[in-house]
C-alpha cells in the first residue's frame, strides 16, 4: 500500500510537466463568468470608455451602465445601430450605424422597440407639437437618453413639466395616474416578497408587466380624461393579479403552519421515545 502511495506522489510531482492540458480546463472553469469575470463587452463600449474619446462623450457609457436598458441588455448598437464586433467598421453606415438622432427624430428612434408608446405619443398634443415645430418634448426630454431608469410618475414634476406650460395640466395628469400607479407599486412589492420566500412568480410578473406597460403607454396620450375613463378597467385587471398573490400568500402561511405542526409531532414523538427508552434502561 505504501508503495502505491509513493508512486502516486511521484506522479503528482511530475505532473506539471503535462500542464498543457490545463487549457480546456481554464477556458471552461476559470475564465467563465461564474469564476468572477463579467459578461463580454462590445467594441463600442470599449472604445467609448477609452482615452481617445472626447471628454464630453465619456460619461455616456458610464450613464448607460447604470441604466435600466443595460440591465435588460439593450446596448449601444441596439439604439444607434452599427457593428459591435468589428472596431474598424463599427460606426460605418454600411453596418447600419444611425448616428445621433436629431431632436424630432428621437421618438422614432426609441419607437423601434417601444411601439405602442410611440403610437400614443405621436397622436398626443406633445407629439403633434413636436412634429409641428419642435415645441413639444421628445422621449429624451422626459426620460433622458443613456441613464434611463425605470419609469414612474415621479417623472411628472414641477421642474420638468412647467418648462413649456403651467404645471396645472401636469398635476391633473399625475392625480389621474396616482391610484393605479400606487396599486402597481404595491403589487410589485408583494411579488418581490413572494419571490424572496421561494415562490416562482413569473406568471404574475408577466401579467403585471403587460398591464403596467399598457397603462403607462396610456400616459403618453397626455389625455387626462382618457386616463380617468380607463382607470376602472386597469384597477380590475390589477385586482385579479392581487387576488392570485393573496391566494399564494395564504397558501404559504398554510404550508408553514402545516409543516410546523408536523415538526411538533415528531418532536413530541422524540420525547415519548426518549422516556420509553429510559424505562427500559432501568
Amino acid at each position, binding site marked *: 500500500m505504501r508503495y502505491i502511495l509513493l508512486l*502516486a506522489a511521484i*506522479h503528482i510531482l511530475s505532473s506539471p510537466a*503535462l500542464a498543457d492540458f490545463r487549457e480546456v480546463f481554464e477556458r471552461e*472553469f476559470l475564465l467563465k463568468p461564474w469564476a468572477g469575470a463579467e459578461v463580454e463587452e462590445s467594441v463600442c463600449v470599449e472604445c467609448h470608455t477609452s482615452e481617445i474619446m472626447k471628454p464630453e462623450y465619456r460619461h455616456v457609457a458610464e450613464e448607460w451602465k447604470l441604466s435600466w436598458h443595460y440591465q435588460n441588455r439593450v446596448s449601444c448598437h441596439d439604439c444607434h445601430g452599427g457593428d459591435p464586433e468589428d472596431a474598424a467598421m463599427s460606426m460605418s453606415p454600411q453596418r447600419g450605424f444611425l448616428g445621433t438622432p436629431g431632436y424630432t427624430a428621437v421618438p422614432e428612434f426609441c419607437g423601434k422597440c417601444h411601439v405602442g408608446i410611440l403610437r400614443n405619443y405621436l397622436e398626443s398634443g406633445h407629439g403633434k407639437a413636436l412634429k409641428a415645430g419642435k415645441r413639444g418634448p421628445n422621449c429624451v426630454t422626459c426620460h433622458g437618453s443613456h441613464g434611463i431608469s425605470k419609469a414612474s410618475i415621479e417623472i411628472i414634476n414641477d421642474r420638468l413639466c412647467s418648462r413649456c406650460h403651467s404645471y396645472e395640466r401636469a398635476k391633473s395628469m399625475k392625480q389621474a395616474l396616482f391610484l393605479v400607479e400606487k396599486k402597481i407599486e404595491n403589487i410589485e412589492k408583494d411579488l418581490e416578497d413572494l419571490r424572496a420566500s421561494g415562490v416562482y412568480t413569473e406568471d404574475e410578473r408577466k401579467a403585471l408587466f403587460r398591464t403596467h406597460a399598457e397603462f403607462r403607454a396610456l400616459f403618453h396620450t397626455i389625455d387626462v380624461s382618457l386616463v380617468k375613463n380607463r382607470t376602472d378597467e386597469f384597477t380590475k385587471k390589477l385586482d385579479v393579479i392581487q387576488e392570485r398573490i393573496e391566494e399564494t400568500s395564504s397558501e404559504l402561511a398554510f404550508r*408553514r403552519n402545516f*409543516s410546523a405542526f408536523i415538526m411538533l409531532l415528531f418532536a413530541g414523538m422524540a420525547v415519548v421515545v426518549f422516556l420509553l*427508552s429510559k424505562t427500559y434502561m432501568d
Partner: protein
Amino acid sequence: MTLWQRIIRWLDERIGLTELVDTHLKGYRVPSEAGVFYTLGMVAVVAYAIQAVTGFVLLIYYIPHADYAFHGLQEIMRKAPFGWLFRMMHVVGSNMMVAVLFLHLFSVFFTGSYKKPRELTWLTGGLMLLFALLFCLSGYLLPWSQLSYWATTIVTAMPTAFPYLGEYVTRLLRGTEHVSGVTLNRFFALHVAILPPFLVSLMGLHVFLIRRTGISPSPFRRSEGQAGGYPLYPHFLLKGLFMVMVYLAVMFFIISFMPTLFLPAEANVPADPYKTPAHIKPGWYFLAPYQMLKLIPNKFLGIFIELLLLGVFLLWPFLDTKEERNIMRRPLLLGVFLLTLTLWILLTLWGKYS
C-alpha cells in the same frame, strides 16, 4: 389462543420468526456504551428511505425534458396535492442525509471503529458516501433552474483538470459540450435508475459486514458497564428511533422556517445557458474540493491531490494499521484529523463567501 398468537405461530412454523427475532433482535448485543452517535448509521438508512419514498412521489409528476422540467416542477410546487411537501422533504432531506453521513463518518473515525477486522465496512461506507454525493450531483440538475444549470456546469467542469481522461469524463457526464438537455436525461437516468441499485447493494453489504463483526466497543469507555452490552431490541432500536424523530423534527423545522435555505433566488429562475448569474456556487458539500481546485494554481496538481486524498480516505484502514484504537493516545493522528476538519470547514466557508 388469540388470533395474533395464531398468526405468529403460523409464521413461526414457516419462517422461524421467533428464532429470527431472538437471534437478530433480542439476542443481538450492542456494547452498553453505544450512545446516540452509534445510531447515525441507522438514521442514514432512514434518511435514504425518505429520499426514496419522496423521490417516487416526485417521479410521478416530474418531466425529464429541458423544456418542461422547470415548469413541471413549479406545477408540483403549486398544484399537485402536497407536492410542495414532498419536494421540500426531498430537497432538505438530501442535504441532511449528507450531513448525517459526514457525522457518521466522523464518529466512526474518532472511535477507531474502522480497524481490523472492519476495513471493508469502512470501504463500503466510504463508497456509499461517494454514491450519495453522486445522487446529490445528479439531483441538483433535475429542477433545471439557473442554480441547477450553473452549479452543474461548475461541478462537471472539475474533471477537465485531469489529463487525457478528464475531458472524456466531463463529456461522458454532459453528453454534449455544454450542459444541455442531453445532460438532463443522463442525470435523470443516473438519479432514478442507475445509482439506486448500487447504493442499496452497498448498503446491504455494509449491514452484513456490521452484523458479522458486531458493533465495535468504544475505546473510551472507563468502566466495564453492563457485561455483554444490551440487546438491539428494544434498547438500541429505541435510541435509533429517538434520533430518527430528531432528524425528522429538524427537517420539518427547516421546511417551516427556513424554506429558502437550500433554494436561493436562482433556484426560482428557469435555466438559461446564455445568462450567467453572478454568484452561483456548487452545493455546500462540494465547496471544499471546488475551492481547493480554484486555489491551487496548477489545476493538474490540484486534481491529483484531490484524487489522492480520496484514495487515502477510502483505503484509510489499510494505511493506519496500528492496534491502538483510542485516538486520544495518538496525538499525531488526532492532530491530523482536527487539521483536516478545520481545513475542510475553512475551505467551505471560503468557497461560500469568496
